[in-house]
């Protein structure tokens, strides 16, 4: 087989065929379109490119997309840990059901969670009505964006932290307890260090997803320019106005952001693996 020179020898067949097809399909479906976006952006002059990026409406959209995603990932970091802890450490009626439910945001189409959240949190909705009495409006404000991103990001944190919690050495906790450590000391000195890489991975995954999220946000956010308009929506608006240059420039920046997040996730995971190995030896 012609492909022999680039792999270690193996008796198994199909290397050339499967790698060839994989590379071809990846290139045709993912890489070629991304290259087209990069070239479209490269055809813009620097001043034009920069003027699109620093346009006040665009800057306001980055602030909302990134800020809301950061806040939502932080809130998920806390509540996601509590949920993962309850599922791993405690046995309670309905635990299996709750565990299965965690993946609902993965399985539920974003448009459905979008209109459902908008309905629940609308000023006259189930929760919106109660929150309005307390003077808080969620729907059609930045808070609504955060709520939608909490929903979308939750499974990332819970599913990252769960396996790490299962691996925490319980005898360490018991030893610490018998030596007089209180629950907060045990949490800070034993549990937190053990789950930190997983916690960070979940946080980064939720953040990456939140920055690019579209469907679940646009129904609840109100979409006011400069106020409640996320960057992906601004790209859609530019496309609808046939402003291909503007859409390409903003899309390119979001693409760069995705690469940065992907790199950060890989970095965090590699760090977690190194720590894991160091602990076992």
């Amino acid at each position, binding site marked *: 087989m012609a492909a022999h020179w*680039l*792999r*270690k020898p*193996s*008796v*198994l067949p*199909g*290397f050339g065929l*499967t*790698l060839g*097809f994989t590379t071809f399909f*990846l290139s045709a479906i*993912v890489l*070629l*379109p991304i290259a*087209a*976006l990069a070239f479209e952006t490269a055809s813009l002059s620097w001043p034009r490119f920069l003027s699109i990026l620093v346009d006040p409406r665009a800057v306001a959209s980055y602030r909302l997309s990134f800020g809301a995603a950061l806040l939502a990932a932080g809130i998920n970091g806390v*509540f996601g840990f509590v*949920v993962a802890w*309850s*599922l*791993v*450490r*405690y*046995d309670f009626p309905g635990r*299996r059901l709750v565990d*299965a439910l965690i993946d*609902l945001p*993965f*399985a539920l*189409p*974003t448009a459905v969670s979008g*209109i*459902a959240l908008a*309905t*629940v949190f609308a000023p006259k909705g189930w*929760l919106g009505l109660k929150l309005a009495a307390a003077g808080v409006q969620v729907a059609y404000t930045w808070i609504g964006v955060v709520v939608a991103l*909490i929903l979308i990001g*939750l499974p990332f944190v819970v599913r990252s932290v769960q396996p790490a919690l*299962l691996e925490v050495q*319980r005898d360490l906790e018991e030893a610490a307890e018998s030596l007089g450590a209180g*629950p907060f000391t045990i949490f800070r000195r034993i549990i937190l260090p053990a789950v930190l890489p997983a916690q960070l991975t979940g946080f980064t995954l939720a953040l990456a997803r939140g*920055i*690019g*999220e*579209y*469907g679940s946000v646009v*129904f609840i956010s109100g979409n006011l320019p400069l106020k409640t308009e996320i960057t*992906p929506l601004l*790209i*859609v608006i530019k496309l609808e106005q046939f402003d291909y240059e503007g859409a*390409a420039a903003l*899309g390119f920046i*979001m*693409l760069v952001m*995705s*690469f940065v*997040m*992907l790199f950060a*996730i890989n970095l965090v995971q590699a760090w977690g693996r190194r720590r894991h190995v160091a602990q076992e030896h």
Partner: protein
Amino acid sequence: MVLAASRAETRRVSLGARLGRALLIFVSIAFLALLLLAPLGAVLAQALANGWQAYLESFLDPDTRAAIRLTLLTAAIVVPANTIFGISAAWAIAKFEFPGKSLLITLIDLPFAVSPVIAGLVLVMLFGVHGWFGQWLQDHDVAIIFAVPGIVLATIFVTFPYVARELIPLMQQQGSEEEEAAITLGAGAWVTFLRVTLPKIRWGLLYGVILCNARAMGEFGAVSVVSGHIRGMTTTIPLQVEILYNEYNFVAAFAVASLLALLATITLVIKTLVEWRADRRTG
């Protein structure tokens, strides 16, 4: 896992620990109920707000029916395509050593990290009027953007990693000894795959396929960018939900949305069953 948890609990008897346990379970359930169950309940309540009759009538709308047909057609193309890709990628990556492997894995994951809107946008840059192939496509009278092929391509893009992502770690963990034995004993490539590999990976494969299907039928952002929203022609179920919702036709919007919620529920049930099977095997 259940046993280990309950054994651990009988060991902890202090009042403080029990209070902490009750508090944390309460916070978890309250948080999930607010975030997950309230929206799900809202879908059902709104869909049935005017009774079953109105609910069922929502599905008589020809545009809604066309949307359901288009979504089924899209999934029927996308899911097999990404399944074949996923098996092929997992075979190359799990069974062989070659330079650039970790780069390949990262690139396969890329669609997960990219905003769905960007997935649509890159296709517009390639096939749109101003795109690389725009002029050629126009000259040859082929429509991709604002037509069904664009919807299919956008959906393949966003669901690209699902099957590969499930199979790669599974096949890496299983190793290749059985396949090597089969080949050495004279079995052909296809026989080895169908009789040795497939039975080992079928549950992971099923899991990847149902997740891929759920996302393919429910994708909104990417499809929204390339669809053009031509009613009855290029609207999928999620886009039809959006149209009905923006027209304040809430009963119909949520009735159609309830189809997708049902799909999500079925997906979760199958996923849970697959995991139970895997647990019983290893446990």
